[in-house]
């Protein structure tokens, strides 16, 4: 029991890091543009398929393949923002963005279904098959590598947002969109870059997801529901909050599976959000909205 519990906690922390990376993209997009990108889940799956294709058809290792998939996903993100998001009527932007990104998600799911069928796939490599002995249990290397990758990329994202000129613009846009425009920040450009970064985060997240889970075009729904829970739990727009929330929620899920039953584990995942929101309607790290409706 003790070993199982330790394994559940370690598992939760390691996968939580990867979910945090995917959720960071979502929360960043929300922070800058005030839109919820429902397509984030299926973009993770799309990235997993990209890694899969590179590996199967070109023999490129998934980690090396990131050099290709990250820029590709970045460009896809920029394109989605430019084609579908920028033109939305400002009046009902929130509601329209949910419908528009959901439509994008459906189209991507359709394309993936046409291209790869609905069969379950998974990424394969030596680090997926081989395990490391740790605290009395075995853990596939990919969990460690994936967590390390997520930490490195999250740190890079943090540095980018806090230390570079473009990062300043992004933060300014998050704090006050109209004010940022007044001081001469090109909001359209910042929005496109932010959406690109959000999509690029799914490239790495999708690769690790594809190596630790089986996936098909349908997997996007489960992913997006989890990512939404994480970003709301952490407070919309907060990257640090997303990290804490992702690890918390996944540890709780894995521990529930050990202590209670695997059947109820994913229900617990969502129930955590409900419980937290009963006491803190703004999430763990969210700030009270100052702007009126």
């Amino acid at each position, binding site marked *: 029991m003790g070993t199982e519990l330790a394994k559940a906690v370690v598992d939760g922390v390691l996968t939580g890091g990867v979910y945090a990376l995917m959720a960071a993209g979502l929360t960043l997009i*929300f922070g800058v543009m*005030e839109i*919820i990108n429902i397509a984030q889940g299926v973009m993770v799956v799309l990235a997993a398929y990209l890694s899969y294709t590179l590996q199967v058809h070109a023999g490129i290792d998934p980690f090396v393949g990131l050099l290709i998939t990250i820029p590709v996903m970045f460009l896809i993100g920029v394109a989605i923002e430019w084609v*579908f998001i920028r*033109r*939305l*009527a400002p*009046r*009902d932007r*929130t*509601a*329209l963005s*949910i*419908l*528009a990104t*959901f*439509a*994008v*998600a*459906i*189209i991507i*799911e*359709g*394309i*993936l*279904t*046409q*291209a790869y069928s*609905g069969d379950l796939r998974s990424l394969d490599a030596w680090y997926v098959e081989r395990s490391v002995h740790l605290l009395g249990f075995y853990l596939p290397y990919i969990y460690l590598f994936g967590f390390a990758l997520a930490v490195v990329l999250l740190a890079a994202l943090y540095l980018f947002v806090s230390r570079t000129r473009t990062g300043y613009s992004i933060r300014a846009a998050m704090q006050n969109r109209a004010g940022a425009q007044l001081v001469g920040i090109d909001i359209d450009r910042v929005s496109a870059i932010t959406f690109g970064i959000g999509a690029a985060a799914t490239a790495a997240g999708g690769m690790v997801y594809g190596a630790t889970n089986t996936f098909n*075009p349908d997997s996007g*729904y489960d992913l997006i*529901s989890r990512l*939404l*829970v994480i*970003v*709301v739990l952490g407070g*919309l727009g907060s990257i640090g909050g997303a990290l804490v929330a992702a690890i918390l929620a996944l540890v709780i899920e894995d521990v529930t599976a050990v202590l209670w039953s695997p*059947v*109820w584990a*994913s*229900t617990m995942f*969502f*129930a955590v*959000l*409900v419980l937290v*929101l*009963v006491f803190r*309607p*703004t*999430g763990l790290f*969210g700030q009270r*909205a100052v702007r*009126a*409706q």
Partner: protein
Amino acid sequence: MTVVLARRAVIVLALACAIGFPFVFSNPATTSIAFFTVLYVAAASAWNLFSGYSGYMALGNAVFYGSGAYFIANVTNHLNLSGGMGIFAWVPVAGLFAGIVAIPVGWLALRTRRHTFVVITIAIFFIFQLLAYNLQSVTNGSAGMQLPLPPWLAATYNDYFYFAALIAAVIAIVVSWAVRRSHFGLQLLAIRDDEDRARGLGVRTGRVKLTAFVLNGVLTGVCGAIYAYYLGSVYPPFAFEAIFDLTVALMAFLGGLGTVSGPVIGALLLEPLQQYLTQQVTAAGLSLILFGALFLIVIGFLPHGIVPSVEQLVRRLKAARSR
């Protein structure tokens, strides 16, 4: 005066068409599409009654749809009811049950606003879907539940359900209309425009929002119960379906958010198209792509919906004539 008369004539004509439809078109494939269309008229009107009027975008209406479906499945199984008209008597009760479910769900979700509200309704939806899989004793899990088969002939089988759905649709439209014209409806619209100010002016926002949310739950639960009886079985992914959440919202958007006729028009246009697509396009991926593209076209070209756009056009024409 003429406008009022014309409007009445249109309503009477539409109702006459709706009642006469199954007598003119008897092909089961057609009446099946008609059944779903009328059912979605009811469901989209119910969604609009809360979300359209209050401005709170709820994406978890399948919670009530599924609750109604599972309620009627449980009632028919536990009471050993045999198929027939009698089961329709339980449909309103299923609606009430869904309304009871809506009370705690609404209380919880309505503590939040805007984006958080949207996300929490989605999260609650997934909790209910998972519960449907896991609460074996009530839902029989992924094996699903069967409802009794009515002894009706195949040729007119759909008609019974069509008229049940039509009654639900008429009730949903009348309730939306009555709410829209009432003091209560004005309070909802005030919340949509500026909740804090509405509160400052004495609107009991919490109570008003919850009442509308529960009304929406009751009407949606009725739809779910009819749907379950029509299918003859209930499975978690069909009763609690993510696409349902978005379809009703899209219909209301297409027609015109917050108008009485908007969701009706939206459902009349979208549901037949969607049903036709699923019947004709067999490649699963392709029908998804087409459906998504349809979504985007609606959002791109009619961001305010058909009814408000037409009203704007009429107003402009009138102004041009009076000049």
